[in-house]
């Protein structure tokens, strides 16, 4: 099997997949790419690009297997777990598995777009805005997805929708509160045992401690859980791949804010 994982800095979607790959024990080669340079849209050797062209998650990692681009961090984590014959990242019990999927979907639908918006505004908008016009035009032209291109353009233009920012801050608050509720019974990890739910939640929430600390003021259990996840060997190994001094401040355009409001 011919496979390579192209990834950004270990934060957001890239962090989930890098940590899952470490946990799986698979020896898939990893190739860091410059997401803010548009490298994800110029990857070599892709015969089936659909998952990049119409991916939901924005500038997440791309696993290329036998010429097919594979995206969406939760599904890539599931794929790696299953390819390894089950490395313990997914519960075996169908109901527990349903609970994990429901949790992950809440995170990817509600927290991820919110965290990506706030993270980009705080940490990457200035550098996207500073891309020279010709270079930005070339980058923009390489993005096949119209809606992802629009999110790049908004950051380049410095367009800020105050309602989206307020909604995103509320969604980060809600995510921290949901974690706090889940952890209230003293469990060590979100689903009890360590799972993809911890990886995906940590990957989008950990950076929010830096940008929106008020979300965590009334969430001591969540802060302690973030520290436990950060200490997991697979997360330590993924974070060690960073080129950025503070990978949790590294963001690239993410998923879209729900069109229905």
């Amino acid at each position, binding site marked *: 099997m011919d496979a390579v994982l192209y990834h950004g800095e270990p934060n957001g979607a890239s962090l989930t997949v890098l940590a899952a790959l470490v946990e799986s024990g698979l020896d898939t080669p990893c190739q860091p790419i410059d997401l803010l340079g548009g490298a994800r849209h110029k990857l070599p050797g892709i015969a089936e690009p*659909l998952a990049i062209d*119409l991916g*939901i998650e924005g500038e997440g990692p791309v696993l290329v297997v036998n010429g097919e681009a*594979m995206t969406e961090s939760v*599904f890539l984590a599931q794929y790696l777990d299953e390819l390894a014959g089950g490395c313990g990242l997914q519960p075996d019990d169908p109901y527990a598995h349903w609970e994990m999927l429901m949790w992950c979907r809440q995170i990817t639908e509600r927290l991820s777009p919110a965290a990506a918006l706030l993270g980009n505004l705080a940490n990457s908008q200035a550098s996207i805005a500073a891309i020279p016009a010709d270079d930005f035009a070339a980058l923009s032209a390489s993005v096949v997805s119209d809606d992802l291109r629009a999110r790049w353009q908004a950051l380049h233009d410095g367009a800020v929708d105050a309602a989206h920012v307020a909604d995103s801050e509320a969604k980060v608050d809600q995510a921290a509160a949901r974690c706090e509720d889940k952890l209230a019974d003293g469990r060590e990890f979100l689903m009890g045992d360590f799972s993809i739910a911890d990886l995906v939640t940590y990957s989008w929430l950990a950076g929010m401690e830096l940008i929106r600390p008020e979300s965590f003021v009334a969430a001591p259990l969540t802060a302690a859980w973030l520290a436990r996840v950060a200490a997991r060997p697979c997360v330590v190994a993924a974070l060690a791949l960073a080129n950025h001094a503070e990978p949790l401040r590294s963001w690239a355009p993410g998923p879209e804010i729900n069109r229905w409001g």
Partner: protein
Amino acid sequence: MTDVTLYHWEPNANSGKPMLALMEKGVPFASHYIDMLQFDQHKPEYLAVNPQGTIPAMTYGSRVLTESTAIMEYVNAAFAGPELMPADAQDAWRVRWWMKFMDQWLGPSFSMIGWSVFVGPMVRKRDPEELAAAIDRIPLPERRVAWRKAINGDFSESEMAESRRRVALGIAKLEEELGKRDYVGSDAYSLADINIFNSTYSLPLSQPDLASREKTPNIMRWLKRVYERDAVKRTWAMGKTDLAARYSLVMEGIV
């Protein structure tokens, strides 16, 4: 007797997914019809089952499961019967990818168009005060916004244009996919087919300029194969509105 109860509307879009998955697996279930157009899903009897007021919901013993795609995955894993997820990990990834693409990107566009031309006009005939009270009972704020837009016809021209763009692009990509593989995401019938069929079965009627024998032969071949499944016929027989009649019209057109 059965331990499984499904609360659902028509065998269509989200409600149709767990109905079809249960039928394919051969799992008997008690059917509890929720009339979405009468706002049954926001009434106290149903909120006692699913406080979020979304349909479908499934109860199994003392457990309540929600979210149609996640319910399907549960049904496939929890019950004996034909396997509806591919054994190959990359095929399974592709099945999940297509379901997310439908659930989060293409489906909301189908539904914005459907609500604007079908659901909105249907419920708009009611007493405005009754409607306002019904909307106030919706537990999820996002759903309140969506219902208000549908009822008031508040979708902007740019929102509708974007939904039409996504529908046209999504249909074109589905056509390409079904040119590569027999079914969506793999060469065997799976949850992705159930998911996507439930939102595309009426395309030849609703979007004849985008989906037809001439324009999308792969989709038409696939629709015909899915239509002919026994589980699909038995599920469609549970429909109560003219959506079921549309099904037979499409059948006549493509078979």
